[in-house]
């Protein structure tokens, strides 16, 4: 991020353009349908939030660098080259009003993967020095401290001690040869310590070996969110090295959508090689255990509940049935929101938007979409599987004066596990 300059940004944009992007820009018919897919438009009705508009800088570079028409237009002075101010002006669209939720990519009739392009466009923004300050400092903390929120291992260690003392469960650290290496998001360490406790309970119940790694416990990847492959690669490599060193079978992504995308899909490509271990989201792990009969639950929640699908899980990860199968084992009154599953609406603060101060008001405004979705089905509790969605939901409900408990699915499952008599004795 040092030495950012316009020309570096321009080169970065140029380097991002591949055959899919050329096909996408060639195909856009300016039908405007992507606008209605994006909650930043639907809740504000402001045309400037139309997804394809967010891609104007990248489109310009594509046209002028990679098409005959673009070259001719430039030659005859019919087009203006991209300039630095334009990139600066686009920060509002490329970052503040895009969570990379991927909804537009499923709606565009010609098949344009818009969020794929916006993700790539961010690479140019970082290189040009136009990423938002909040995200830049989070990324810097991630590199130097090891976590975007500045959480260091001793903080986690304190939490582990606490859990072990309170519950009697063991939270293994740096165990070579464990089946699962578990990772966390800082949000979970800071705000939802219940998550780690739930994991301890679940793995014990299922009789599986697991471990944390003291040098690589943070799974969120600010490099992916901000759009810097260099940072993303550095952060991913920490996890990869740890998983290889501890010789684990599976690296488990936490309840965080972007962490999953970072390690599951972008990780291997950033490293330039296939992983020797498997990567699964915690929900995929839980569903597998359930199917193997290793999760025995008892008791049913009676409250009317719904599940908020984190974008990166449904639209960029195909994790759709898993949370439903799991939730149904512990909830009696499970109802779906309209557009649930693949087309669920974003919470409004993914993709790093939550870390951008200037976006705070907008993010609260577009939360109206979630409120409308929830009001229509009159639920008492929302369950989700992403710490970032969770904090956004909580803040949103507060802003809209809604009493609505938000639960993490993993913890909910853990609460309903049948306690094995033998282990029960050991605890008491």
């Amino acid at each position, binding site marked *: 991020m040092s030495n950012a300059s316009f020309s570096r940004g321009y080169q970065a944009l140029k380097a991002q353009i*591949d*055959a*899919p*992007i*050329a*096909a*996408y820009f*060639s*195909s*856009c*018919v*300016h*039908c*405007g*349908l992507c*606008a*209605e*897919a994006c909650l930043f*438009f*639907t809740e504000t*009705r402001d*045309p*400037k939030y*139309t997804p394809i*508009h967010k891609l104007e800088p990248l489109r310009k570079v594509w046209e002028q660098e*990679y*098409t*005959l*028409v673009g070259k001719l237009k430039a030659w005859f002075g019919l087009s203006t080259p991209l300039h630095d101010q334009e990139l600066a002006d686009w920060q509002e669209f490329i970052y503040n009003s895009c969570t990379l939720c991927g909804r537009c*990519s*499923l*709606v*565009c*009739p*010609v*098949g*344009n*993967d818009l969020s*794929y392009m916006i993700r790539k466009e961010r690479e140019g923004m970082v290189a040009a020095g136009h990423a938002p300050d909040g995200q830049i400092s989070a990324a810097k903390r991630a590199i130097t401290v090891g976590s975007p929120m500045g959480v260091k291992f001793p903080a986690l260690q304190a939490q582990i001690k606490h859990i072990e003392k309170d519950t009697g469960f063991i939270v293994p650290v740096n165990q070579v040869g464990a089946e699962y290496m578990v990772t966390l998001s800082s949000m979970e360490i800071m705000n939802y310590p219940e998550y780690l406790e739930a994991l301890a309970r679940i793995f014990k119940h299922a009789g599986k070996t697991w471990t944390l790694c003291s040098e690589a416990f943070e799974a969120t990847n600010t490099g992916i969110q901000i759009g810097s492959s260099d940072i993303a690669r550095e952060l991913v490599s920490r996890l990869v090295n740890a998983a290889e060193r501890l010789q684990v079978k599976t690296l488990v992504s936490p309840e965080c959508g972007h962490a999953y995308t970072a390690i599951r*899909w*972008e*990780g*291997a*490509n950033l*490293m*330039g*090689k*296939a*992983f020797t271990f*498997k*990567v699964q989201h915690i929900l995929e792990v839980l569903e597998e255990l359930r199917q193997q009969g290793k999760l025995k639950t008892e008791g049913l929640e009676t409250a009317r509940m719904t599940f908020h699908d984190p974008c990166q899980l*449904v*639209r*960029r*990860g*195909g994790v759709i049935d898993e949370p439903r199968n799991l939730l149904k084992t512990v909830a009696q009154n499970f109802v779906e929101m*309209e*557009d649930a599953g*693949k*087309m669920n609406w974003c919470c409004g603060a993914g993709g790093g938007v939550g870390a951008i101060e200037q976006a705070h008001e907008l993010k609260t405004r577009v939360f109206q979409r979630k409120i409308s979705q929830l009001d229509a089905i009159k639920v008492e509790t929302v369950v989700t599987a992403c710490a970032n969605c969770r904090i956004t939901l909580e803040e949103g409900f507060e802003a809209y004066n809604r009493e609505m408990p938000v639960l993490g699915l993993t913890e909910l499952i853990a609460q309903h596990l049948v306690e094995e008599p033998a282990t029960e004795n050991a605890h008491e």
Partner: protein
Amino acid sequence: MNEVAFLAWVRGIGFQIALGIFIVGMVVRWLEIFLLGKKHDYSAPKGSAVQGAIHTIFSRSIPEKSTWQRSRVQIVTGYVFHVGLLLIILFLTPHITLFREFLGFGWAGLPNSVVDLIAVITMFALLVALVRRLQDPVLRFISTFQDYLVWTVTFLPLLTGYMAYHHLGFSYPTILGLHILSVEILLVLFPFTKLMHAITLFIARGFNGATAGHKGVQA
């Protein structure tokens, strides 16, 4: 140039020039896209990229539910003029005669009166699309000169064809010549404007579907 010479020109040299530019343009555009390449994906697949691509190439023709609910007019208008254009191009008897000349085979056409009606409906749908482009805040905001240019060159063949069929406005050779000329303009602009989407949308859907399929998502 008198009208007979004009008609002869658009049927002869004019057509050859247009077709030539069209073919060269298509090759250039194709290369422009595919020479850029795509990086190998090292992440372990969760589903099939090929199946995802094939699925999306077809499935994206049907709007997904929430889009349909939010953008009905836009979607219906789009369907009507696309289907209309296709039917007119492929099933008007004089067009089929032309195809037979070029391809060596033809097929049964629709009755002229039916195609005539389709032409009216199609022109109407295009007019609705234009009005929406001018009035809808999003469409007006994202529209560029090219959008209006492409609209015009799509509308003109319909209009001139309709006028030729009904002997309106000009002498028959003149209006027929204008009709052919308008199609030639369309051909020339096709590779270099968004008209190209008629071809590239399959590539776009394919790439998008492949990415989704690889991740186990049905796009």
